[in-house]
């Protein structure tokens, strides 16, 4: 008897114009709930289960405990993929952010024709890494490629770029920075335009010079945008795949170019080692999760919210 009374109290307290609409929510959410169970939240757990098995899809899965994780820790190609991904992230994220910040500061001026100039910086963002990857593989081509022709003009010797172990990853980074620059510029521009003019007026009253205004007004107030692009660039960088597939695949990515997601693709969908691929994808997830937590913890120290 106690339960209906309590429910009645809750219902009475909630009785507004929208009381009794709760079951409509189920209707509106039905596709999302099915998707969550079958294609996102469910599979994330399933992936953990699969990572504990040896499964080639032809014979039934064998439970092997943490063997996949142990063998990955000793597998050269996986460790190289980890190192390359870390190298790619460490270079592409800071370079991309600093360039984007400088560009956003410049593009934020009320210049005539600025919209057209901005378009040039934004355009690469919407293009597929596959198609522009083909263009860049032609730019990097040792035979008549644009880059060798250009550096030849200033007397530098031609390089093999993608097939040179030293230049391979920097070449991929250059293309990625070029392609992703516009995203960060747009976020920074939105951040810059959200800074109230009063702060600059106050700084002008105090006699702050241009550099000092940048250092003490603009940059501190832009830290939320910097934080935001930082985390998204970081997560994105760990998932690099398309550029490697197009630029480095003819043949097979070498020790110099294989990345974590390429390793997952190869192990799962070339060699059908489902357990190993799932384990590698969980390692990717854990690395990204740990970095995200550390990054979020750091925000008290340097991010200023207005």
């Amino acid at each position: 008897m106690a339960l209906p009374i309590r429910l009645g109290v809750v219902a009475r307290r909630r009785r507004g114009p929208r009381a009794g609409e709760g079951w409509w929510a189920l209707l509106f959410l039905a596709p999302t709930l099915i998707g969550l169970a079958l294609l996102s939240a469910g599979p994330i757990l399933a992936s953990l289960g699969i990572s504990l098995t040896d499964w080639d899809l032809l014979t039934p899965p064998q439970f092997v405990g943490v063997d996949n994780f142990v063998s990955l820790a000793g597998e050269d190609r996986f460790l190289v993929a980890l190192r390359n991904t870390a190298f790619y992230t460490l270079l592409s994220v800071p370079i991309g952010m600093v360039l984007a910040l400088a560009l956003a500061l410049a593009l934020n001026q009320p210049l005539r024709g600025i919209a057209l100039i901005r378009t040039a910086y934004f355009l690469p963002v919407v293009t597929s890494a596959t198609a522009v990857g083909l263009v860049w593989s032609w730019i990097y081509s040792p035979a008549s490629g644009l880059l060798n022709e250009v550096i030849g003009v200033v007397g530098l010797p031609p390089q093999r770029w993608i097939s040179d172990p030293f230049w391979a990853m920097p070449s991929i980074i250059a293309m990625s920075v070029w392609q992703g620059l516009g995203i960060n510029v747009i976020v920074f521009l939105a951040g810059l335009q959200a800074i109230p003019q009063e702060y600059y007026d106050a700084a002008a009253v105090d006699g702050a010079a241009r550099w000092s205004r940048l250092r003490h007004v603009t940059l501190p107030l832009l830290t939320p945008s910097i934080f935001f692009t930082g985390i998204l660039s970081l997560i994105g960088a760990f998932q690099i795949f398309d550029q490697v597939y197009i630029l480095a695949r003819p043949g097979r990515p070498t020790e110099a170019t294989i990345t974590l997601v390429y390793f997952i693709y190869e192990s799962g969908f070339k060699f059908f080692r489902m357990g190993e691929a799932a384990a590698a994808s969980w390692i990717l997830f854990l690395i990204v999760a740990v970095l995200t937590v550390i990054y979020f913890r750091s925000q008290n120290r340097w991010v200023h919210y207005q």
Partner: protein
Amino acid sequence: MTAGPVTTTPAAQVAAVSLAERGSGRPLPARRAVMRRSRRIVLYSVLIVGGVLMMIPFLWMVITSLKTRAEVFGAAPLSLPSGAHWENYVTMWNALPGVTFGTFFLNSLKLALLNTGGQLVTCSMAAYAFAAIPFRGRGPLFGLLLATLIIPSQVVLVPNFILWRSLPNPFSESGSFYGTQEPLWVGAWLGGAFGTFLLRQFFLAIPAELADAARVDGANPWQIFTRIYLPLAKPALATLAIFTFMWTWNDLLNPLIYLQRLDQYTTTVGLAFFQGQYVGKWPEMMAGAMVSLAPMIILFVVAQQYFVRGIALSGLKG
């Protein structure tokens, strides 16, 4: 100035004028204007040079796609082609056995439209529930959905592949959904964290009084959703549509995993396959890249404001 000190000698006059000018501060704005103008010229130059550098890969793609192979390897790299060799586009279009590039193009278009439609319908429904219908467990459920947004999509690659591969499908050669296009669009009709989040933010800004008024007139939630919320959310829906279209059109990894036959390929896998077959044939390859990029470039030029707003809101590219 007229009230300047009374002097007699020319030298003293000059000194007085320059003193008075310095005192009145008149040349300072003039100098500042010169500085501002020169700074502006430097800024313009840097931005324009940078912008041209950003466009060079595209320019080179277009130029190469119109050259003969002899010109590509002989002439100076940025020289113009001897004439527009459109035959590269024809060669590229018919390069692969049994299919034309048009097949890839239509496959990409079909998948992009199916994904866009699915996301618009199901994300807006979910967003309405999260924004406007109070129900028990709303907070935790929304939190769970958001959590899936920050987990790398590669984590679900293996289990989803196994799921599609084990679902029976009497209409395909494999007997399952492996080697069909269904895994590349059905999921879009089952909601999505990004779209739901984006639209919910927009719906929350719609005043509840509008819905309350409709409710008094006897409208049910579905009618409020379709007649009040959706029409008001057109800018957000456009943003979601453009992003979903772009993500599907540009996706490489998923088509690579699921598609088995050439006639199912999208432009991205088609181009990658083409790359393997046409090593060193740059004019034809650049023509292919050009054709596959054209729809996104046109869409961007037409709808730049929605792209910019979407990125500014989410920072996401995909």
